């Protein structure tokens, strides 16, 4: 009997946290997976179509990619700490971690834009070859997602300003953004492995 009650309580507790909003957002992320899958497929087909232009070995700088990877990985764990604080209802701690995550995301974006503008300035823009077109489309789409994530984070920081506690709705919003942010890190694993590292082997 007692076991039944605890099992029911635990079940209700789980359902309470897996709200339909979070599941719906998860399904959106799955469709986003398909977008990135298509872009990776295009890149896989185009990766040797240099049209006399530079190869990946000539245009990619692994040290910069390594720093970008480190920044994104760090921002994943700082967001995670923010979510732990959010579930403990420590609003100011959560906002601090979210702020750190925002700055790390901004740093990542800054490095990516610098890399892109450097390549374009050297005449290796997306119009140079099919390889570079697919590269800019794939990595640019990821960068666009990071930009959207940063905007979303700024909105949530604004909405939680001056709050002393978080309601269920705000926790739901923070959870959706955490899924989005960790998902972008997973896409980046594929980017640095299949785009950057495989091009310089």
């Amino acid at each position: 009997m007692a076991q039944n009650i605890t099992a029911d309580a635990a079940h209700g507790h789980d359902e309470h946290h897996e709200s339909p909003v979070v599941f719906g957002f998860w399904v959106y992320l799955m469709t986003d997976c398909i977008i990135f899958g298509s872009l990776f497929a295009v890149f896989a087909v185009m990766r040797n179509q240099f049209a006399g232009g530079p190869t990946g070995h000539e245009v990619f700088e692994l040290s910069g990619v390594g720093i970008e990877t480190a920044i994104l990985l760090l921002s994943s764990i700082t967001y995670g700490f923010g979510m732990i604080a959010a579930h403990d209802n420590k609003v100011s701690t959560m906002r601090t971690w979210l702020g750190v995550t925002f700055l790390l995301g901004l740093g990542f974006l800054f490095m990516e834009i610098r890399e892109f503008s450097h390549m374009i300035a050297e005449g290796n823009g997306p119009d140079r070859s099919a390889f570079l077109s697919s590269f800019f489309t794939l990595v640019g789409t990821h960068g666009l997602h990071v930009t959207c994530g940063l905007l979303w984070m700024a909105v949530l920081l604004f909405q939680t300003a001056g709050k002393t506690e978080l309601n269920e709705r705000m926790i739901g919003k923070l959870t959706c953004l955490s899924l989005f942010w960790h998902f972008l890190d997973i896409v980046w694993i594929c980017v640095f492995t299949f785009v950057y590292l495989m091009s310089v082997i």
Partner: protein
Amino acid sequence: MADHVSSSGESHGSVGSYLTGFVLAVILTVAAFGIVMSHAMSPSGTVGAIALLAVIQIVVHLVYFLHMNGSSAQRWNVMAFVFTVLSVIVLVAGTIFIMHDTSINMMSR
């Protein structure tokens, strides 16, 4: 009460689980960059090794950061994910296979 803490700890992760995931992710990332930069393996061996490391790292992120698990609350999330992975594999492998075959038969390379 103890039950409450453990079940919420499972669905949101704890500092410890985030740190475990982070350390594993760092090790896997450094290994992938190290293998490529040190030229320790043959080119085809390197491709296989870093692809394997990427798959392992994706699983680490899913478990420790996205808190995916086999619990009943996660069932539909996991099912949607498995279907998506299947679609992406068909999409990517199919595209590479068809375009490679076309390119060979058209003698464009």
